[in-house]
């Protein structure tokens, strides 16, 4: 059965801390891994990773994929209260016909 597992389930940090969120997957016919940030309702797209070992970076956020060990990490440096959200990991498979989401990591950044 295809699955995406995220850890930790929730995390509480203080502003300025650095956090690492994990996503592991067991999905046949893997194509890409995607990260989303979900505040309130609608997830917003952060990154798409297709190749191993190539870091994607956007401001204080960065992510990398390891296709051999079947996992990805999302790093957030110098966290701010605005980073508080649920971070979702998704895997695209079968030529982008199927998408599997993890349950998310709930990040709470305290002032």
């Amino acid at each position, binding site marked *: 059965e295809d699955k*995406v597992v995220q850890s930790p389930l929730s995390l509480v940090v203080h502003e300025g801390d650095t956090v690492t969120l994990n996503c592991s997957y067991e999905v046949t016919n893997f194509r890409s891994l*995607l990260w989303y940030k979900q505040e309130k309702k*609608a997830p917003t797209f*952060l990154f*798409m990773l297709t190749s191993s070992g190539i870091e994607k970076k956007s401001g204080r956020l960065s992510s990398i994929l390891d296709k051999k060990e079947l996992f990805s990490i999302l790093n957030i440096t110098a966290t701010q209260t605005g980073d508080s959200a649920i971070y979702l990991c*998704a895997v695209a498979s079968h030529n*982008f*016909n199927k998408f599997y989401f993890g*349950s998310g990591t709930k990040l709470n950044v305290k002032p």
Partner: protein
Amino acid sequence: EAGVAQSPRYKIIEKRQSVAFWCNPISGHATLYWYQQILGQGPKLLIQFQNNGVVDDSQLPKDRFSAERLKGVDSTLKIQPAKLEDSAVYLCASSRDRAEGQYFGPGTRLTVT
């Protein structure tokens, strides 16, 4: 650029009733997705359209759920009859290409009593 539009935003119905949700994707986006997100879980893909054709509907409960995108633009998702376990947020998303990130609408929160 206008985002993905969905309506209604909230809906409360009794079990065995029917309900329909509407989605208008970002202009020019060929791919449209419907997801079901139950509280505390990640979104579950119900159906993916490429223009007006179905790419994948393997997780759509076809005995009660149906979806269409007749003109390859906006889409409707219907549930008939609804069950208590259908209570969830229904998210619509679109992308310019299937190999790109998806843009999500605000969702419709459905409560079945």
